[in-house]
């Protein structure tokens, strides 16, 4: 198992090198010279060239890539072209906000989706199933942006229970987490339902019932555990997505997370910030994927057996 984890961590190196190269390549192709974002309109060609050298934008893409990798290996992700602030420091300032939002969002998604999915599967084709699936469909169909504004109007403007945005205590995370979490819950509800439906028809559950095991035990102890693999997969993917930043929710709720940081940096052609933030996010997502794989092993003995070979 440990060897597997170490192998996965080693695999992270080519992934990061690839991500940095792709970011460099895309930013190079994107219209809008970063030098013009930094220099004034009256800058002369000589001054522009001087600035280009100062910002490390001289040379071809491979030279710049090599230079960046060399600095990255020393833990230096550079300085923002626009704010002149350290990229790593800026990212780490935003990361707790994103981790916070992602964690609470996933809690909301799990608390809503697992019970709803189980109810829908256990009571297949009943009114409960129909209602659950309609709710899931609504959750998938309603745009985050619109749902966020509706929640603000209801809970902030009308009821005055919750703040409309910003980070100001525990209350301020409820609306953004609900906005993102309900959308994710919809997808996870459908996955839970279909995964449970596959499992509840298995012979071993019929055997358990015939042996007199209570229905509650059959569902929660025997069925759910076996249905968890696809749910964990979706959980991992969605958690990684939220870690990358929920730009729309962050914008509506003025939530200073990494998603908005990256989007703002792209708009300003702030290459060090874009590259640095994506490198850090890639590392985070890779670690989350690794954790998900480890959880698989705990849930499924067959996978654990593979690792221990």
């Amino acid at each position, binding site marked *: 198992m440990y060897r597997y984890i170490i192998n996965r961590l080693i695999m992270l190196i080519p992934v990061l090198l690839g991500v940095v190269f792709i970011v460099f390549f895309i930013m190079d192709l*994107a*219209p*809008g*010279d970063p030098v*013009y*974002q930094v*220099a*004034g*309109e*009256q*800058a*002369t060609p000589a*001054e522009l060239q001087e600035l280009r050298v100062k910002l490390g934008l001289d040379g071809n893409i491979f030279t710049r890539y090599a230079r960046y990798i060399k600095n990255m290996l020393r833990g230096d992700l550079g300085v923002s072209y*626009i*704010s*002149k*602030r350290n990229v790593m420091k*800026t990212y780490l*300032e*935003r990361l*707790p906000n994103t*981790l*916070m939002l992602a*964690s*609470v969002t996933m*809690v909301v998604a799990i608390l809503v989706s697992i019970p709803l999915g189980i109810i829908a599967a256990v009571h297949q084709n009943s009114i409960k199933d129909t209602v659950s699936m309609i709710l899931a469909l609504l959750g998938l169909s309603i745009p985050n942006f619109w749902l966020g*504004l509706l929640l*603000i*109007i209801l809970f*902030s*403007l009308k009821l*005055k229970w919750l*703040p*409309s*945005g*910003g*980070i*100001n*205590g*525990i209350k301020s*995370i409820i609306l953004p987490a609900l906005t993102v979490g309900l959308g994710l819950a919809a997808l996870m509800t459908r996955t839970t339902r279909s995964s449970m439906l596959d499992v509840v028809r298995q012979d071993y559950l019929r055997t358990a019932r015939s042996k007199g095991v209570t229905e509650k035990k059959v569902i929660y*102890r025997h069925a759910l*555990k076996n249905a968890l693999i696809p749910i964990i997969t979706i959980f991992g993917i969605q958690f990684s997505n939220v870690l990358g930043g929920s730009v729309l929710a962050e*914008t*509506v*709720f*003025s939530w*200073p997370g990494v998603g*908005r*940081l990256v989007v*703002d940096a792209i*708009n*300003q*052609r702030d290459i060090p910030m874009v590259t640095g933030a994506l490198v850090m996010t890639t590392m985070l997502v890779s670690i989350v994927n690794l954790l998900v794989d480890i*959880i698989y092993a*705990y*849930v499924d003995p067959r996978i654990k057996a593979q690792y221990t070979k």
Partner: protein
Amino acid sequence: MKRFSRISLITLCLVVLFSFASYGQVASAPNSASYQEKIVIGTPLDVTTTDPQASNTDSNMILFCMTHETLVELDPKTGKVIPGLAEFEVADSMTFKFKLPKNATFTNGTPCTASDVKFTYERAQKSSFTKPKLTLIKNIKVENPQELTITITQPSQEFLTNLAHRSLSILSEAAIKANEKAYDIGTGKYCLKEWIPGDHLTLEYYKDYRLGPAKTKKVEFRLMKEDSARVIALQTGEIDVCIDPPSVELSYIANDKKLALIQVPNVIMLYIAMNNAKPPFDNLKVRQALAYAVDKEKLIQAGYNGQGTVHNNFINRGQFGLDSKLTGYGIDYAKAKTLLAEAGYPKGFEFELAYNGSAKALIAAVLQEDFAKIGVKVKLAEMESAALKSMLNEKKHTAALYQWTDADGTDFTVRSMYYSGSGSNRSLIADKKLDKMIDEALVEPDNAKRAEKYHLIEKYIKDLCPIIPICTSIINVGTKASVKGVVWMGTAKHDYSNIYISK
């Protein structure tokens, strides 16, 4: 399963608790005697730098207005140059004397001297943002810690106006030499307390400010990019000022007795920049044809919900020498078609119009319809602001919807927009006669004659038709009704340094 559940549960709880632990309620500040201690301003635009000489965006200028001071200032009502940090004397047309008060100090407590002024301007001469305002400086002589004399290479009626620009705020030589990023230290009423880019910026009053501390102890600029959320935050009382609420939601503010809707005529000119250096816009008749096909009223309705003013001038409203009698080309599709035929385009032509932003997108769509009436097809090219700016600076555009935001010095405007080779000359017009007229107007000492020279310049530019001025819009700001002390500016660079809310 039990083991897994426990591990999962404990991990989940730890993650959530750990995350919550990094958050806390913002401590409520103690109340001062007469004024609300903290004012929160919701803004859609983030501050990008705390260096006055490294940018000229609105949000940055608003910050520098609070943290820094310039040697001289412009009276917001008359536009005339008045003393700022220093008293001034115009010794002759090329010599200016300044005297700093003895008790002027930076917000770190160190005295502000003439040497700091010299250091600031010499640093500004190296910045591509600020150097155009100081190109005329010949010599800066420090007479003593409080006095300095600046001589310029030729007479200029706008040299002092240039010095009033916020980008030329006085910096601390000692602080910057000790730490190159100490440019946020100025002599203003407020000092920078905290800046979290993408979230908020907090200023705290400088209690030893020479003219007495500001009434409000803390002012926070909170970045709120979503327009509707910003208005709701004002309605719920989470913020005290809402900059630039969307035009469709103004009624919520206007109809709420606890709130006030501030509307200021904008002096920012929206115009169509046609690239005069390449076909088909190198042909005067083509440019004029397009000018005859622009329905400015309709564009204001489309882009700004009818809230704007038709602009026929080539400098901004309120600027010295503006010819208020100058008329536009008017709408004449028949004449436009005739001009196109004379220019060799009887069947019209196709060109790309670049722009950014939602209001300009609506305006561009109407322009597309209008130009189609004279056989000209417009290919709409909506771009990100960075891409558009880069394209304009690289002079690769055919035509663009753009704006001119500076409203201080008329010479700075005409020199930037229409002088041969200027970096902000988006039409790329290069006319030696016009250049000469601009140079002559700058040195004319008699104000009446100088104003007449700018009238002639505007008429000449109208005939050349390098750009098509469209309109100016209305600046909207929502505030709590109790907010006082703000100087609302037509450039949107409002002065919040005296903002307060009485208890």
